[in-house]
């Protein structure tokens, strides 16, 4: 099952973490770097990546962090989760970042570094 939360068309490289992301606390909104040691993608940049993570957690203000990433040109080009949450959905909606939800199985099969095309208007959304 693939569910579209925010429409869009893009292609790029997967950056995946299996840890839920607290955007307010974990991401530097000026650089797009993950600056919380707890993450397996610590010190990696989410800029221009297809960011794959289970779901968002923590402060509702994380939506502003997603918007700021876009305004500062350091946002991911798409986000893929397996559980939807309001903070990520609304942040992506305002920032025009395509966002889709995958089943647990599809999510698990996503690998770091994989090249992916996303087109929410097409029959096959992910290729």
């Amino acid at each position, binding site marked *: 099952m693939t569910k579209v939360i925010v429409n869009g068309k893009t292609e790029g490289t997967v950056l995946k973490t299996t840890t839920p992301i607290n955007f307010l606390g974990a991401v530097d*909104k000026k650089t797009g770097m993950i600056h919380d040691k707890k993450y397996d993608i610590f010190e990696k940049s989410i800029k221009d990546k297809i960011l794959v993570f289970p779901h968002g957690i923590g402060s*509702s*203000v994380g*939506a502003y962090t997603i918007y700021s990433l876009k*305004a500062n040109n350091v946002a991911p080009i798409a986000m893929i989760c397996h559980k939807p949450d*309001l903070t*990520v959905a*609304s942040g992506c*909606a305002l920032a025009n970042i395509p966002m889709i939800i995958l089943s647990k199985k599809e999510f698990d099969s996503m690998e770091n570094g994989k090249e992916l095309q996303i087109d929410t208007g097409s029959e096959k959304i992910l290729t």
Partner: protein
Amino acid sequence: MDLTKEEQSALNGEKGDVLQTAYRILVATGEATNAEKLIPINWAHLSGVNYNTIGDSGEEFLRTISQEAKVKVKTTVNPMGFDFDHISEFNHIDDDFIQKQKSIRNSYVKMGVEPTFSCTPYDIFDLPEKNTQVSFAESNAAIFANSLGGLKTNKESAFSALASAITGKSPYSDLRKDDITTPMTIRMKLDNPNELDFGMLGFFAGKVGDTSVNISGVSQPNRRSCKALCGGMGTSGTCAKFQFVDNEDEKSEKIDFGKEEMNEVYDELNTAEKGDLITLGSPQLGLEELSDLSKMLKGKSFQKRCMIFCSRSVQEQARSLDYTNEIERSGGEILSDCCTCLTPLIDTNETDVVTTNSIKGAYYLKNSTGVDVNLKPLSKIIEDETK
């Protein structure tokens, strides 16, 4: 999701940019929560007020949309970075921060929000009748509304609540319905828990629970403990509701919260044994808590700086009832419009460790302000830190 003709035309941009943006947010959050339609709400509470958290892009975004946007329902807002009445006492806050915070405040006021600057709207206003649909973005307030206030809200995001304020609508998600399932029961195993224990229970429940949890083994906690529970739960996960239950549902999964689980939370958030500064209030203190505090402080004096955060409206009521006299005589500084979480008032050049009884406060002090934390219940803070 099914939209009415009017909603669809707003989404298509026929009613201007602001409404189009608001409906785009509502549709995305509706899809995210499997809602089949939008329903009216009659109170929105917004987060995203502190310049520390929303930054330059947030300030600019609000300045732009406030040229056109007006809220359609009663709308209250979260704390800012500081208390304008006392800002001259904090030399380390630069003028740029003050100007940007002023701009954010003005943008919200221009949109027609009530300038409450509080994370505890439930302490300021009488709650509407049971089952009223609201949209609260502040997590402790959303959990309080759903669990203790008899209201219904998603754990909204800053933008979904703003979209609700502007349209008067929100997706009809599971949390807004009557028959939500609660597959997990947390069994409270601590005897005579204080508010710090309840905060830790909340933090634990937020981590293991999904949308809603049952809590058994708890008898009528006071308001301070209830607020600590809501604050802790909102900080650690996605859980948006709890129910105190007497009997455990046989079918639900059961998880104990005992000494071992408590110690795990304590060790994660308590990183020092002694603080340089004390903060009370995250969530901001209510009238009852200020009344208790004034009694507990009778004849005592703080031996170090103690910041006490409450909403302006609660501070005004407390002044008229003389609860503030004893607190200020003891050296407590009463501050409004801001709280422990993410305030720049704590000068990290002068402060290494903050003592607090708040789990929510501890999480943000550690992870955002960047100081160590010494956790103690209020009774112990007063015993150790006053003479």
